[in-house]
């Protein structure tokens, strides 16, 4: 009798362990998406000291352009994905040149409102495309619906791809910022624009490229998210959950954005299971409020104070 009970509890414990692991993995996968969008915020914040509210909508446009490349133009998956990312990168550069650059130097809030406007326009224009804009689409990816079974663990291929791709992208960005001339120039420009300008770095062009990079990263996030949640015009609202990610990581830190994204993703996934219904959606915001009260500069933010 008692032996049987011990066996039962052990089995229960194993099950809860597997369950926890399962939740953690889905949280990490979701967190990677948040992290990637937050990465876009941070890139733009570091370069132009403004926050782009259009990041979520850029992600949505990225997903739609990937979809268009696959279904409309008939590209195979492996060409459509880079094509969508490059197209979004170019779009980001153009956006910076046409809309953002003319008002650089204005109070930061003007640019925030401007990006909100850009987000409205992007969402509106996508919705206005006849027959396509208002519908929900499935992204035809080759790995759709496949699962990996590991003991009691069931991992969807989509989640594996999200985690893997985020890891590779982060390594790539890390290498770029550390070793390439362009990356070092971006770092210099974000630290001190005037000094960078004196050293011969074309700061304006660098800012444009940063916007392109941020839009490209947003497109990656959109393409990764698409198989999980479908493609639709309002998917950009997930960008609002990436703000907590950026704040938790410290708004000025690139690794912080990814870590913050993971924290938010895991918290969301766990609170969705262990806490009463409703907490899942606001858990990220509770975390961010706690963070702002306890450690306003985030996990990786620098604590600095302006001198007069």
């Amino acid at each position: 009798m008692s032996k049987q009970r011990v066996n039962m509890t052990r089995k229960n414990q194993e099950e809860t362990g597997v369950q926890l692991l399962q939740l953690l993995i889905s949280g990490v996968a979701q967190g990677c998406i948040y992290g990637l969008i937050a990465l876009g915020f941070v890139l733009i914040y570091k370069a132009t000291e403004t926050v782009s509210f259009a990041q979520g909508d850029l992600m949505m446009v990225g997903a739609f352009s990937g979809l268009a490349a696959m279904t409309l133009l008939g590209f195979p998956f492996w060409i459509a994905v880079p094509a969508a990312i490059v197209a979004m990168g170019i779009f980001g550069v153009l956006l910076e040149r046409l809309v953002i650059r003319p008002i650089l130097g204005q109070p930061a809030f003007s640019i925030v409102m401007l990006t909100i406007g850009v987000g409205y326009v992007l969402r509106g224009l996508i919705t206005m495309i006849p027959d396509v804009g208002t519908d929900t689409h499935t992204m035809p990816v080759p790995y759709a619906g496949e699962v990996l079974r590991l003991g009691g663990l069931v991992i969807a291929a989509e989640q594996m791809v999200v985690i893997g791709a985020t890891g590779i992208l982060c390594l790539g960005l890390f290498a770029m910022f550390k070793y390439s001339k362009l990356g070092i120039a971006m770092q210099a420009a974000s630290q001190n624009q005037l000094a960078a300008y004196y050293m011969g770095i074309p700061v304006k062009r660098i800012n444009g490229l940063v916007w392109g990079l941020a839009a490209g990263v947003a497109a990656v996030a959109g393409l990764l998210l698409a198989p999980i949640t479908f493609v639709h015009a309002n998917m950009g609202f997930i960008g609002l959950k990436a703000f907590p990610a950026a704040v938790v990581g410290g708004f000025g830190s690139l690794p912080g954005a990814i870590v913050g994204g993971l924290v938010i993703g895991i918290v969301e996934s766990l609170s969705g299971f262990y806490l009463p219904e409703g907490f899942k959606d606001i858990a990220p915001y509770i975390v961010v409020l706690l963070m702002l009260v306890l450690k306003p500069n985030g996990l990786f933010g620098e604590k600095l104070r302006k001198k007069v």
Partner: protein
Amino acid sequence: MRFIFKTEYNQDITLAKHGGHVFWYSLLAIFLVLAPWALPEYWLAQMTFVLIYAVVGLGLMLLAGFTGLFSLGHAAFLGVGAYTQAVMVNAGVPFPLALVCAGVFSAIAGVIVGLPALRVKGIYLGMATLAFGFIVEEGMARWESVTGGNAGLMVTYPKLGGWTLDSTEEFYFLCLLVTVGATLAIVNLLRSSTGRAFVAIRDSEISAQSMGIHLARYKTLSFALSAALAGIGGALYAHKIQFLSPEQFSIIQSIDLLLMVVIGGLGSIHGAFLGAIFLIVMPQLIALGKDFLPAAIGGAAGLQGTVYGMVLIAFVLFEPMGLYGRWLKVRTWFQLFPFYRRGLFKRQKSFQKSDRLK
């Protein structure tokens, strides 16, 4: 050009600075009082909405335009006010008392948000208010015993003793009264030392601090007053719309409110009203314009969002002082005719105001 000759000290503190003010504002007052008889009922209802949004706009203008603190969660205060009013009036409380309670509860919520906001600046403040907005919205959806949750909550007509304000006209006058009161309060506040302190904080926190302004106190006060006005606006909104559901107070509403003050013109009281007019009239104009567009564009669902976004982009790029700024330029052009110069209102680039440390 108008030259004001000052012959009395009291001239410095009168609200109407010259005959022009007296004339035009009297004309406006007469129009507003006669509006119920002059306008068809539909337009009167729209004007009531303008007045309600103007009250909320005044609050947000005080916070964003005069104290320099931006709130991305102002719809939450609107919601707190609306639900307070709805629950109290439904329980039979006379509406003036409910209105005061709506303002007070919102102000308390404002202080609660203001407290963490004191430690953070700029974008972090935006994030804190955004987070607060989401939490309140979810709270309204989940606290079903009071708010009715996602199913919504019906609101009865405002009642005072045996008198029920159930006609469009009566409610319009109530809104007009509240709006005029709120406007006079804000105008006078901005002339007082408190208002001056707000403006000083907006222009430079560091210099305000060195002049002896208690930053924490004034920022919290600004949040509280702004939230109180939003709450009163929300209370009127509840009666006007007569049906409350949490999604009316989402981030979209918060962004609409911000859009209102930015397009109206940050840092001007007129801006709150012009923005409110814009917010109410724009959808009507879009609906009218739809008929002239090809069906593929005119009938599309995203048209309104696109137009809003484009107008917002155009204003930020070309007229950062909003509608009121444009009006100032036009007026100056006429006043100075033919001496208006192109660079008269030239924007100063403010690279120096960077938060960057180096």
